[in-house]
Structure formats: structure tokens, C-alpha cells
């Protein structure tokens, strides 16, 4: 029985010794922060052009997180590659020959990669927040205001969960290409489009990214967005259910299929 601390240590070695880890996480951070800053600056200069509803529900915290839409894709790539390269390289057979207990193997890997994604996510969300607020000028808010700290920490958790969800999907599909081909269009296009289509948005509300991103809003239904039948924590809860389901599915596939 390979001991859990040993497997954790080994997974950490694996993760830190490939360059894809560095560039996916770095681009998640840079893209999110840079795009959030750009949109914050844009909204500051165009604040007066906003509609009354949008002005009434203006949410400076949420605005500074605008970059997440793009930045989360880098997190998806990170999550997919952590698992997918085991399959594409054939390393999975070496790994499972060394750790025959598949639950230990998968959940150690997920724990290490998830913790790393969470840390990077938190750094990203704090950087995005402070830079965005600095650029919003007179429309800014502060970290001490009601619910703001919850939203900023929630932004970090959101990124970590996106990575975990992707790992689960990649474990189920056992292929980087397939997972990316499904997840990237889903998060970047399908989920965004469906959430704007009248009937479909009732369903889209319960998608992991739509539900989870509620945690980043300080003002309910910020910027005139759709009303949701759940609060910020409820939304995060829905996302957690998605993540748990994908990881459980991944585990069952790994356990039952031949490597």
C-alpha cells in the first residue's frame, strides 16, 4: 500500500517538473488580471453610458473579475493536462503499476493539483480585485465593505473548482484533446450563449460556471444580470455538486476500466 503522503509528494514532483503547469497557471493569472483591469478601466470611462438598471446594480467587485471568463479557460487547460498527459504519454501505466490503489492515486493527484489551482486562483482574484478597484476610480469599493471579502475569496475558490471539474472530466474521457474539445467550447461559448437564450437560460443557470460565479457578485444580480433562484453560497454549492460528480465519475471510470 503506497502511503498517501508518499503519493502526494510524488504527485507534487510530477506537477512541478513539467512546464505546462507553469504556463497554464501563469496565463490564468495574467489573463484574468489583465482583462479585469482593462474592463475596469473601460467601465470607469463609460460609466455614464450604462443603463439605469446597470448603474443601480453596479458591482465594482464583479467588474474587476470580468477576466475570469477568459482566465478560467487556462484553468481548464491546467486541470485537463494534469490528468490527460498521464494518458497521452502512457505514464498512467507506470503510475498505476507503482500505485495499484487507484483511489489513492487519483485523489492524491487531484488534491495536489487542486490545492495549487486554489492558491493561484486566490492570488489571481486578490490581484484582480485590487488592480480593478484602483482603475475604477470613484466607482470603487473596498475589501472591508460588506460581502466583498467573501466575493474575492470566492473568486479564488471558483478558479480552483473549475480546475477540479476539468480533472474529473479528463479522468472520465481519458484524453486531453477530447476533454479540451468539450470543456473549452462549453465554458467559453455554450454556457455563455445559452445563458442569454430565453428558455435555455433557466437550465443554464445551473451550469457549474454560471452557478459558481454568483459567489463573486457583491450586489445581487449585478449589472442587470439574470435573477437566480439561489444565493452566492447556494450557487457555489451547485458548482460543488458538479465537481463532486465529475470526480466521482472519473474515479469510477479509472477503477473499472483497464489502464
Amino acid at each position, binding site marked *: 500500500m*503506497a502511503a498517501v503522503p508518499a503519493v502526494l509528494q510524488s504527485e507534487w*514532483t510530477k506537477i512541478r517538473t*513539467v512546464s*505546462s503547469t507553469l504556463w497554464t497557471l501563469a496565463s490564468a493569472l495574467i489573463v484574468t488580471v489583465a482583462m479585469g483591469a482593462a474592463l475596469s478601466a473601460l467601465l470607469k470611462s463609460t460609466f455614464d453610458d450604462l443603463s439605469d438598471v446597470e448603474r443601480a446594480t453596479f458591482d465594482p467587485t464583479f467588474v474587476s473579475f470580468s477576466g475570469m471568463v477568459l482566465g478560467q479557460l487556462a484553468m481548464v487547460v491546467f486541470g485537463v493536462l494534469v490528468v490527460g*498527459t498521464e494518458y497521452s*504519454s502512457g505514464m498512467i501505466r507506470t503510475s498505476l*503499476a*507503482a500505485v*495499484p490503489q487507484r483511489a489513492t492515486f487519483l485523489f492524491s493527484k487531484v488534491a495536489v493539483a487542486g490545492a495549487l489551482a486554489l492558491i493561484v486562483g486566490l492570488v489571481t482574484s486578490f490581484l484582480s480585485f485590487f488592480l480593478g478597484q484602483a482603475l475604477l476610480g470613484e466607482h470603487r469599493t473596498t475589501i472591508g465593505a460588506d460581502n466583498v471579502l467573501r466575493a474575492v475569496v470566492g473568486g479564488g475558490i471558483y478558479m480552483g473548482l473549475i480546475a477540479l471539474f476539468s480533472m474529473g472530466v479528463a479522468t472520465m474521457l481519458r484524453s486531453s484533446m477530447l476533454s479540451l474539445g468539450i470543456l473549452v467550447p462549453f465554458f467559453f461559448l455554450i454556457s455563455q450563449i445559452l445563458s442569454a437564450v430565453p428558455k435555455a437560460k433557466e437550465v443554464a443557470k445551473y451550469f457549474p460556471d454560471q452557478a459558481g460565479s454568483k459567489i463573486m457578485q457583491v450586489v445581487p444580480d449585478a449589472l442587470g444580470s439574470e435573477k437566480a433562484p439561489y444565493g452566492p453560497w447556494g450557487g457555489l454549492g451547485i458548482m460543488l455538486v458538479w465537481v463532486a460528480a465529475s470526480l466521482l465519475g472519473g474515479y469510477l471510470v479509472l477503477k473499472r476500466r483497464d489502464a
Partner: protein
Amino acid sequence: MIEAVGLTKRYGAKTAVYNLSFQVRPGVVTGFLGPNGSGKSTTMRMILGLDAPTSGRVTIGGHPFRQLPNAPRQVGALLDAKAVHGGRSARNHLLSLAQLAGIPARRVDEVLGVVGLQDVTKRRSKGFSLGMGQRLGIAAALLGDPQVLLFDEPVNGLDPEGILWVRNLMKKLAAEGRTVFVSSHLMSEMALTADHLIVIGRGQLLADMPVKQFISANSADFARVRTPDTEPGQREKLSGVLAEAGGQVLSETDGALRVTGLPLSRISDLAHGADVRLWELSPHQASLEEAYMRLTQGAVDYRSSDDKLAHLQAPPQPGQPGYGLPPQPVVPADVPQQGWYAPPPPGQNPYAAAPQPPAAAPAPPQAPPPSAAPQQSLQKPSDTTEDAR
């Protein structure tokens, strides 16, 4: 000790391995042979718990692999040389494996030296040649100093020096009392490396016996004797004399005689005594390769056929100069089909007649007495240790 009992694996309708039972004993190199697609790798993966058998079981030291305590310290395996993340350096790859089993980092540098990769430890394995990949895979197998070692096609892609090194490494590991299980489709390589052979074809056991016994059971050394064509009577006369002396005599299509069971000198003496002149008296020895080919020829899944290039060539135009001889009648080969392999002694090999389903396995698994195994390994003393190269 690896023990398989009734091991069966089906992928949908295709049966990859059927009812395979064998034991791999410590102290000898056990070769695992079979044609492409015969189920060698599937069996290896089942031993390592990567694939779950459809039925039957396989254990290492009495435990199924997945229940082994600290598997990397007990079993080392090379399955696929390229099963490495290409972006990771050789050293980091081994380090991640070492940490799993609580093996100190020092050991990583040690094995890198053992396999001769000490100069490329920091290089990404993406740039490795197949041979370097094999060495890295062997290093991973040796990492935990395990008592049981499995190597799937370890000499693929190695240069002659590397092949020699692997050969000696296997023998050395076995001589240290470890269980060494090496798969290959190269009989000639196994002949030099292994002490014991397990041969499978189409997923079923064809033979399980020491190499020596395998050769003598499956080979057919014979002498070809030719008497003057001009005097047919001499041929009949010699046949009679040889049969009387205890030899088996078969006629070949071109009139030569194929004699088994008598040494050349005795044949010569007998011919002399019978006053028969000989035009040819030549020894023919079956190699292990031939023995193997004949054993497995009924069980080959992927067989190449002649490349008929006729339709690509311009039709011959008879009568024109420069097109060589007119078509010659095809001369039948002197040995009937199955060709280049010496046919077996009559009645010994059911495969000789026609390809049959392996169900009629010619050699029931004959477990040699356990005491025979260590002796075998002692008979192979020629290990020159080139380990620390």
C-alpha cells in the same frame, strides 16, 4: 514467484488470453515468447493489475498485485519505454516514482548510472531515442531493488552493445535470486538470455519448459543424404540399411533422403559397408528460431504474404531481345510448404500437419521439478558484469 491460474482476458468478442496457467520461478530468467498479438503484453498488464482478468487470477508472491504492500519495492516493471511524460527530465521522472515508495533520491542517481544515462539526467525524455527510452524504463524497473522484475520487449531499439548489456543484466538479476520475466518475440534473443521458456500463441500456452528441453523437443536435426541419381537401386538399398540401423528415413521430392536418429559418421560407415556411393551427406541443424517458428506457425495472427508486383510491371513481350529467357516452368521447392523450417520428426508435432487451433497444444505445461531450476542458472556462468557501465 509469479503464478497465473486459468488467466483469461476477453475484449468484447476477441479473446486475448485464454486459460493461461504458469509459474515464473525465482533464480532463473524466464522468457515469455509468442508472435505479435499473442497476448504477451496483455498478460504482463494483468500481472501488474493494470487490466483485470475476465476470469482466473495471477499473483505475485501469493498476493494479487493490487493488494501488494508497497508494490514498487517488490515488483519492478518495464512495460512501454515511451510511457513517460516527454516534458519531464529523466531524473525527475524517476524521482517521482522513487518518492512513491519512499526510495531516497540518491538511489535515482544510482540507477541512472547503472543504465548509462548519467549524462542526460536533466534532459527532457522527449528528445530520447528509443534505446535511451528503454534504458530509462529499465532504470524505473530497477529503482526499488525489487525481487520480481518484468520486462516487456526490453531490447527493442537497443544497439548491439545495449542488447548485450540487457542480456547480462537479466542473467545477473536472476543469479541474485530474483524472479525475472522477460517477454520477446525474438527467439534468437531468448535463446541467449533465458533459462526457461513460456511460449504462447493466440493467448494460449504452447510450451512451458527449460530452453534445452524446448529445443530438443521441438527441433529436428537431420542429415541429408543423396545417392547417385543414375542408380535408383542404391537409394533403396541405403534406405533399407539405414532403417535397419535404427534411423528414420524420409524421401525428399528431389530424391534425397532425410535421415534422423543416426550420426553422420555412422551413416557414412553404413553406406560404405553397403557399398553405396554418396553424392551428398550434409548435417542440418534446427535452431531455436526454427523450433519456435514451427511451434507457433499455427498460431500466428499476422502473417505477411508475397508482394505480387506483377500488375505494376510492364507485360513481358516475348520475342523481343533483351527480355531474357522464355518463361520457365516453376520448379517446386524440394520441401513441401512450411518451407524453410525443418519439418519435425514424424508424429511429434501436431502443428506440422496443418495449422490447427491452439486448443491442441502440443506441449502440456510440464512443470519441471523445482530442483532443476537453480541448476539451470548455475549452468550459465558466462556473465560478464557490465552493469556499472
